[in-house]
């Protein structure tokens, strides 16, 4: 078994609420019912 902190296929995606860059907040679980492609950016440079 891997570390429990590592998110891998088959595990529940950790939920979060973060400020949107365009205003307001977005909660991951508010997308339930539709698949989500979550892309971690490596900065904007």
């Amino acid at each position: 078994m891997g570390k429990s902190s590592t998110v891998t296929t088959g595990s529940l995606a950790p939920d979060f609420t973060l400020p949107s860059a365009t205003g307001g907040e977005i909660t991951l679980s508010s997308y339930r019912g539709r698949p989500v492609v979550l892309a971690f950016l490596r900065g904007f440079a």
Partner: protein
Amino acid sequence: MRDDYEKFTAVDAEVLAISAESVPAAQSFLKSHPLPYPCVVDADHTVFDAYDVTSRLMSLGQRPGLFVIDEAGTVLFDNVGNQQFNIPDNAKVLEVLETPRSA
């Protein structure tokens, strides 16, 4: 990702980008480079840590991460690369999304 956004929406998927920049930095970037999908800001790296996509160091230490999450919140596909060129092919991501699921 930007160019293939329509392909993702065509399979009824949402795209959410997450940045470790500050809110003002993200805002000023998006003003000149608008994204067709929402972008959230994880300034204190809580979520980057939760997904083990550590981004505390400068760009050399950052890891590109991409996760596909299904309708129930379960991870269908995960890819955390060690190098910038380890980003998965969008075709691969679409294949995951198009694979029938028992939901």
